[in-house]
């Protein structure tokens, strides 16, 4: 009887321990996640950046004490682009740039996560944009975590990086929009 209790205790401890160290999966909260971009407007003599955002973002990320077990998957609806000017939005969605009817999604899938400091990570992954997949490395900062006002546990990260649109097959109209596009991805996830 005593032996059985000991085994039960050990089993419970193992379950608790594994729960404590289990990787947590977070579902991206679209209402509190942002994908912003800015690109120099060459047609306006480069005097201004065009700022825009994608409003439809989905995905999840896994957080573990072991960075090797961490991962992130993000899918952005390319058609949700918004710069505040409908004509410009339609142009950016056309075959001139994103070609959303042919390439409706922009995705990022991590391959490797490394911790590089307190709340800072280096993430290497595949960015698929305009039908072209390129491996990129970005530095991500944890913005914060904790229970929100509804009692759900949330965690947020942010990164800013620059890509060349020509690397993703968007090589035309360089005399209108610059090749370099700065992206800011700020995501907040709700723990499942």
């Amino acid at each position: 009887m005593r032996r059985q209790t000991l085994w039960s205790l050990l089993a419970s401890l193992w379950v608790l321990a594994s729960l404590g160290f289990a990787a947590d999966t977070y579902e991206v909260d679209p209402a509190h996640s942002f994908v912003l971009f800015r690109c120099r407007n060459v047609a306006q003599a480069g005097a201004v950046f065009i700022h825009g955002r994608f409003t439809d973002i989905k995905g999840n990320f896994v957080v573990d004490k072991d960075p090797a077990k961490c991962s992130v998957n993000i899918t952005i609806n390319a058609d949700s682009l918004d710069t505040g000017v409908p004509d410009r939005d339609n142009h950016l969605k056309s075959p001139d740039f994103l070609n959303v009817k042919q390439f409706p999604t922009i995705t990022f899938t991590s391959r490797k996560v490394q911790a590089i400091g307190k709340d800072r990570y280096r993430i290497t992954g595949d960015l698929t944009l305009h039908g072209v997949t390129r491996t990129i490395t970005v530095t991500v900062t944890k913005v914060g975590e904790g229970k929100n006002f509804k009692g759900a546990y949330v965690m947020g990260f942010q990164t800013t990086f620059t890509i060349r649109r020509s690397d993703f097959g968007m090589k035309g109209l360089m005399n209108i929009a610059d090749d370099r596009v700065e992206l800011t991805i700020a995501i907040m996830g709700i723990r499942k």
Partner: protein
Amino acid sequence: MTFFLRSALALGLPPVAVTFVGLLLAWGAAKREQRVVSRCLTGFAVAIGYAVGHRIATGALPFMPSSAEHWLPLLALVAALLGILESLPNIPRFWRWLWRLLFGIVAVAVLLLPLTSLSPMGKAIWSVGLGVLMAAVWTGMNGLAGRVTDASLPIALAITAAVNSAALLIAHTAIVSQLSGVLAATMGAAFVFVLWQRRWSLLGGAMGAVTVLLFGAGINGAFYADLPIPSALFLCLAPLTGWLREHRSVQSWHPIAPIALQLVATTLFAAIGLGIAIRQLGLPTGGY
């Protein structure tokens, strides 16, 4: 204005030069009584001239295209290659019809393949419908090119392509608009050439290349950008109005009358296409 002029010259002059050189080579072959070679070179002059402009406009000329607009130079080249078959003597009319039909259906299918908003059945229906129409337009244009050997045909095609370019700009795609502009430039070169070499015909592969480029730009505009489908149809069919000049009553008019009728009819038909685009989409606001 300088910005647009500079862009138009940078984009238009190289295809004009390449097409003109190609037509000179074709003319040289015709002088040596090599008629088949000459007709093939005419087709390649248009296709390669366009490819040069395509490279400048899009910054790429991929051998294996990943997006719909990049299929256009390859399709124009295939049409020019089919022109070799067209040039061979004693080919029954049935076979000409058959390969134009197959080419039309395959060309439209290839252009619609990457589209995500259409079901496979929808793509198949559009491919067959537009493919048959493309084959009919190619045949109609070829027939016209066989009869009309003055400069009115290339200038009518240049006008159509230029109006198409304007409609595509309204449909929010400057690059496909530029590609139609490149086609207008190659036809401009053909116009100058025919002014110099009277009775030069664009029969064969050249007509195939022009037809597939006109349809290709229309399909890209209508399915991947915002060009209304009726607008695209009017623009693709506009050059066929040249057949009006072949009416017996028109033939008896002043010699310049058939040419004027052809140009006015083509411009009007293309303008209806442009008008539909403006009505549905409004004029571009510009300056954003």
